[in-house]
């Protein structure tokens, strides 16, 4: 049984967050992954490629990456789970549809929306799964990607 306080969060949308995609942030992200792909770091190589310039690794939409603000709808849902005694939170998974590459200098806007909250019986007992979807739009108004992320609260 999902507590009413959590159920109310389904469909809630966070205020838009603006992500300025910086070249250095792309480089640090690729370095942390251990990804030496020259498309993310070598200007001359990237300029001669099909992209005509440096791009970000798919899944990077500016810093901070993949950590929604806890001040909005997601924070509310997680607080509600904690109030119900489910205080251990784990990231559960990620999915994307990609439409356009992300480039340094892009200004992306995304508003995470709580797509679903469900209950499941896990190995360590009952758990809640909170999933939210963010559509990233660039400075030209074009949709760059849809990203869905899930959290487990147990």
């Amino acid at each position, binding site marked *: 049984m999902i507590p009413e306080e959590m159920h109310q969060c389904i469909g809630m949308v966070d205020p838009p967050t603006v992500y300025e995609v910086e070249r250095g942030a792309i480089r*640090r992200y690729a*370095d942390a992954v*251990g990804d030496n792909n*020259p498309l993310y770091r070598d200007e001359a190589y990237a300029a001669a490629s099909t992209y005509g310039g440096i791009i970000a690794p*798919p*899944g990077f939409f500016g810093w901070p990456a993949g950590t929604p603000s806890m001040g909005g709808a997601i924070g509310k849902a997680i607080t509600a789970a904690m109030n119900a005694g489910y205080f251990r939170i784990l990231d559960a998974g990620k*999915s994307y*549809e990609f439409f356009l590459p992300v480039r340094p200098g892009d200004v992306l806007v995304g508003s995470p929306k709580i797509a679903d909250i469900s209950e499941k019986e896990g190995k360590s007992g009952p758990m809640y799964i909170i999933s939210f979807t963010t559509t990233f739009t660039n400075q030209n108004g074009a949709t760059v990607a849809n990203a869905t992320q899930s959290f487990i609260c147990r």
Partner: protein
Amino acid sequence: MSNKQIYWDDVQAGQELPSLPKIADRVMLVKWAGASGDFNPHHYDDTFAATQGTGGVIVHGLLKHAWLIQFVTGWMGDRGTLKRFECQYRGLDHPRTMKTMNEPDDGPTWHCIGKVVRKHMDGDAACVDLEIGVENGEKQITTPGSATVVLPKRP
């Protein structure tokens, strides 16, 4: 890695992708925390991690997701396009501790593995569906996933 282009015509269902070895150590997790902006102490603070019921510090799910994206994008080449990607963090992974400032202790090596499931055309787009995953040192897939890439066709 990115210089060699693979073509849709040359890919077959069932074909395995060359695996990508990865070693998660404490330093990599701290670098990832900074680069991603995920400062959850579950990934670097032993005392806090001990309270989380996961057997200590664990590798960020999003870091494993980024390994898998490196694996797929490296395979598809510069003229390939990643259209769809998903992965689930099913199993916990514990990073290696450090022997020196930048060298990990002995421990597991992870591998990104994958194979071609299906080739199909979506309009003009020559698509390849992949089944992928991060395999731990015991050959268990802790992070299964799938992806669809569009590859160039031979002229």
